């Protein structure tokens, strides 16, 4: 069965919404009019990511020979544009001798994973499930 033009437009908008929500934490909720939630995500998630960098955490490389490193890299990428800003500015090298290294990694990885949850939440809101 072929999708109607309206359905295709809606699915295109949903893809754009999810991309925006991934790229800028909270953007999806702001788009959908959930302003307070969007602002909280917009502030809290990049702040958590920045704390991870300040704690000498590492932005892991996409090394598929080491599955855990590859998975950590995917989780890091979950934060969206802040990831690219950090890498372009040379942050995220990781200081393995720092006491806070593992905490930094936890902050970076969890910030990315939480942003992916936020994307799923925005999708659910757009679909009328919430």
């Amino acid at each position, binding site marked *: 069965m072929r999708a109607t033009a309206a359905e295709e437009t809606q699915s295109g908008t949903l893809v754009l919404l999810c991309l925006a929500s991934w790229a800028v934490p909270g953007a999806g909720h702001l788009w959908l009019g959930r302003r307070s*939630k969007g602002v*909280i*995500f917009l502030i*809290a*998630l990049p*702040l*958590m990511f920045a*704390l991870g960098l300040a*704690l000498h955490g590492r932005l892991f490389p996409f090394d598929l020979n080491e599955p855990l490193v590859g998975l950590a890299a995917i989780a890091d990428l979950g934060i969206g544009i802040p990831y690219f800003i950090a890498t372009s500015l040379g942050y995220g090298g990781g200081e393995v001798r720092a*006491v*806070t290294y593992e*905490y930094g990694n*936890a*902050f970076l990885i*969890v*910030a990315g994973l*939480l942003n992916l*949850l*936020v994307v799923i*939440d925005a999708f659910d809101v757009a679909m009328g499930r*919430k």
Partner: protein
Amino acid sequence: MQSHLGLLVVFAFFVSLIFAVIAKDDARAQLRFGGLMFGGFLASALVLGWLMYPFPL
């Protein structure tokens, strides 16, 4: 900051905040859910910490 407990508190705060905002729509429900989650994080970390205390690294 290099305090393990301090970093644990900050981490628990952020995770509880995001989960509460995702899971609940009402501000009171968010506060209640987030508070419970935050308390649960801290309590479980302290209990597990003391349980592991006798074991050498």
